[in-house]
């Protein structure tokens, strides 16, 4: 319970300032393109961790929702309107829609079943993009996305895009902070601990799980849509089920079940995959070993480690 109190009293403003300052500070090192990419991945991890860290459901098919956003925004830009804001809204709506449709089926499952059913749907979605609807999605070649200017806002300018994505990351973080520390969010966390008991208290857990699932898929789709603004090119790798392990690793290394952990984990994963991968030729080996270490020795992740250290210091936090 004391952890709850610290969350409430500290408020998210400090976190937001730290995240913003962090990304602006590393900007000269990373470059605009990459920094934007890092932040988008952090949004994706936030969406994933809402499901895994807070509700205790491991999705092994979250690429499906990222890919849904990416392809929805691209198709929208091609066929309906090139207004980037409308396209983004369409991407998020597509994520919410797929969450709403698949949700009732998926959230009834727990544990291994939840992971595998997500994976199955991811595989089906991958097939749709790669083969069945390749006429519309470009199949293996992918398809490009073009967006027009809206007034003075031009996402073709990387600085504008960086600012916008940073705003999106902070907004997502802020809303999730509000969500997870609300009574609703506490209930979601209780479902992770003991769903039977929550049910016994008279709550309709199905509805809570469904809504949380929709929220998670929408955020993932949002991240996918944003990366289209950054890359301008949708390829099947945005929905490839073998890449699921990336977001899982990011959430684990940061520390599941905390928003700060998700952002830290996302950043760490991106650093590893962008920089270390060029020095380590056996990249999958390294990722696998890191995963094993995380699972066996380091289960609370980086953020949990930092938190432990802070708690051990005598009561300066009162």
């Amino acid at each position, binding site marked *: 319970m004391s952890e709850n109190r610290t969350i409430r009293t500290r408020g998210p403003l400090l976190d937001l300032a730290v995240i913003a300052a962090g990304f602006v500070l590393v900007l000269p090192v990373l470059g605009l393109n990459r920094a934007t990419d890092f932040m988008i991945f952090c949004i994706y991890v936030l969406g994933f961790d809402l499901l895994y860290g807070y509700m205790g459901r491991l999705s092994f098919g979250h690429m499906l929702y990222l890919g849904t956003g990416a392809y929805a925004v691209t198709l929208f830009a091609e066929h309906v309107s090139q207004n980037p804001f409308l396209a983004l809204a369409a991407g998020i709506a597509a994520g919410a829609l797929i969450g709403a449709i698949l949700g009732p089926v998926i959230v009834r499952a727990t544990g291994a079943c939840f992971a595998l059913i997500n994976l199955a749907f991811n595989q089906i979605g991958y097939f749709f993009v790669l083969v069945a609807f390749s006429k519309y999605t470009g199949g293996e070649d992918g398809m490009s996305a073009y967006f027009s200017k809206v007034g003075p806002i031009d996402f073709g300018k990387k600085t504008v895009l960086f600012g916008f994505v940073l705003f999106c990351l902070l907004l997502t973080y802020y809303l999730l902070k509000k969500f997870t520390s609300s009574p609703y969010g506490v209930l979601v966390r209780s479902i992770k601990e003991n769903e039977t008991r929550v049910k016994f208290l008279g709550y309709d857990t199905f509805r809570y799980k469904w809504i949380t699932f929709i929220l998670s898929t929408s955020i993932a789709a949002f991240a996918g849509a944003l990366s289209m603004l950054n890359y301008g090119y949708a390829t099947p790798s945005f929905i490839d089920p073998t890449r699921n392990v990336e977001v899982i690793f990011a959430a684990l290394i940061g520390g599941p079940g905390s928003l700060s952990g998700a952002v830290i984990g996302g950043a760490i994963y991106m650093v590893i995959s962008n920089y270390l991968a060029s020095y380590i030729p056996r990249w*999958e080996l390294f990722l696998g070993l890191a995963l*094993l270490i995380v699972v066996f020795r380091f289960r609370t992740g980086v953020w949990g480690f930092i938190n432990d250290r802070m708690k051990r210091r005598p009561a300066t936090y009162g």
Partner: protein
Amino acid sequence: MISTIAYGLTIGAILYIISIGLSLTFGTMRIVNFAHGLIYTVGAYLLMTLLPVARENFLIAAVMTIAAVVPLSYLIERFVIRKLYGVSIDYAIIATYAVLLIGVDLIKWIWGASPVPLTDPLGSYVTVFSVTLPLYRLLIIALSLALYAALWLFFKKTMVGKIVVAALEDKDAVRSLGISVDRYFSYVFVLGSCLAALGGLLYAPITSVHPYMGFMILLISFAVVIVGGLGNLRGTFIAAFALGMVMAITGRFWGPAAETMVFAVMAVVLIIKPIEV
């Protein structure tokens, strides 16, 4: 039509051989074992390497492969799986997936990343109702039937088998009888891994050998396990052949959709009857 059925039965036989181990570990230890796909791949690669050593004698190479898989799977059990008892099932999934990643990378390191085709070890054909079929495929089907009978005898007649079946039903009850269940789980794991390797080496001459060959077949095997019921040996048998036929029939009309169809079936089964783990 006959060739479609024969193809479906061959895939069904391979799926059955692979799924047994998966079903047993899932049913007894409650571990979703992604490393199973690694053992399958290793089986194919070892066969490929050992064939020249065994002077192209398929049978000897196969026996040597399985003998080599025993210590390997024991190591995986000892250093990864055993530590996962009582841990959240999510961590078990992630840890075994990590083993798969590590193993695949090592395979790429040792054998290279490009696919290697193998030749049919028998090279002879039989004609069934005026359709020519490779004898090798028919032998695989026969072998899976023999395996089913052997496993049935093992689980019904031997002490180890009976204990495993009892543990599938109620682990704690068996433990309270003073039987070290975990030790039997190690046997089950090694047995399952040997079968995975057997599946890999049998299927290798039909497709080609490549580092990622284990991924898709593993996912399909999960579908078999789920459709057949966890730790349900007869269910696994029926589900393997049923899904094999689904793949063959779908593949006949629309090749790329074959695997997706299996996942669709699995999704439907999960919707109707979710598993509680």
